[in-house]
């Protein structure tokens, strides 16, 4: 199996299992950034980054749990230090067809910014929604513990900001 195919398989596996992992996460403290924020319990919109290794690469599945009111969101996935290569080809591949999304890899490969919106003002379906996945070159088994989410903002119709939270979990 070539590495690209292996990563894709890993991405699907991570994405499909992310809801179950969310429950497991409560018992799996993987670092400071994984400590469950107090806001998570209250927020109806939760961004979930699930990180696993595939050879010398790490792949991060990106899912969003919403209550059916979110029409747009933005955030940056902060990568571990020293990352030299990022593959973001599938970063928004899981979005519904009525949503648009773009991601932006910073020049220094320190973060990947996501901007997701519905041109028609529709809301993401309630429940867990796959956004996509990214991969990056890091052999560290502790990559998830070095990752964070910054600048998360979720809005509903009329630009109303919604309470939101983010979690990064590892599966290795």
């Amino acid at each position, binding site marked *: 199996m070539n590495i690209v195919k292996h990563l894709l398989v890993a991405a699907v596996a991570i994405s499909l299992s992310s809801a179950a992992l969310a429950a497991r996460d409560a018992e799996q403290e993987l670092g400071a950034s994984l400590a469950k924020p107090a806001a998570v319990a209250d927020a109806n919109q939760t961004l979930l980054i699930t990180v696993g290794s595939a050879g010398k690469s790490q792949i991060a599945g990106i899912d969003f749990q919403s209550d059916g009111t979110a*029409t747009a969101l933005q955030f940056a996935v902060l990568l571990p230090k020293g990352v030299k290569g990022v593959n973001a080809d599938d970063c928004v591949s899981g979005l519904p067809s009525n949503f648009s999304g773009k991601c*932006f890899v910073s020049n220094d490969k320190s973060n990947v910014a996501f901007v997701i919106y519905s041109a028609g003002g529709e809301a993401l379906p309630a429940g867990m929604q796959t956004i996509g996945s990214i991969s990056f070159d890091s052999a560290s088994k502790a990559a998830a513990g070095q990752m964070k989410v910054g600048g998360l903002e979720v809005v509903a119709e009329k630009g109303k900001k919604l309470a939101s939270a983010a979690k990064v979990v590892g599966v290795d």
Partner: protein
Amino acid sequence: MKSLSRNLLMGAILAALPMSGALACTVSQWTGAKTAVDADAKLPAEVGTYNSRYSGSCGLVLGSSGDYVGDNHPANDSTYNARFYVFPELSGGSAEVFGAYTADDGGGSQPISISYGSGQFTFNVGGASGNVAAAAGKWYSIEFAYDAAADTFSATVGNSTFSGSTVGVALTNVSLSGTIGDVAAIESARLGWIASAGTGRIIVDEFESTRGVAIGRLRPGDANGDADCSVADYNFVRDDIAAKLELFFGGSNTTALAAGQPDCNEGGQTDVADYTCLANRIGTDLNNQFDGIPGNETECAEAL
């Protein structure tokens, strides 16, 4: 994040004059001598393809020479800064779009003149002049700093460089320092299509002036006017498109125009291209905020 244009020292502000009042487009807040009338201040749908304004609801749309608004706020000001937006839509000839004078109501001499024609802005200050190339059919910010005592003048012309996956701003500077030869203080200003013959239209908006304090560009893509580019602006870009269509087709206008700057790419109209432009500006801001490089933070993909 802070908007530079809102970060002015309050005491330094001379004038911030809109083209709208509480309920309608109007030039009533321009109290100097003027030839433009309320009917020249227009909503976007009143001018066809292009938006009539850069920000807020209304802009001043002028179809011939000799139509302008006047501002007598300057009071023997030897240091004078101003910033305004202009949308040159000329197919021929030229138009003087800004003038500053040494007496009220355009009286006395005229130390500063800014014109558009033949694909460029021309700055005439005292006995010196300089040009900045600028294609017609786009919104441009023009900001200048004039110091009569120091005999200096510098100006910056800005326009979005949105293209494909990149976005930013092209800022072109013109400096006439030390060559002006005119040390007169400013008493009044005019904005519009003041003089010179041409074919087409001139649209102006968002005039602000200060006594020696830099003003800065408004944030393109900040559709809701909160001085920040974020996904919250999408709703307002979308509503701005809908509102213009409602107005254009004469139906009931149930959707509000965006209060900020929905024309993210400064191309002259709010349309679906502004969605992509806004995504690019937000993505750039996030990349720069979290890249660990001090000092390169941006707002709406433009330097703070």
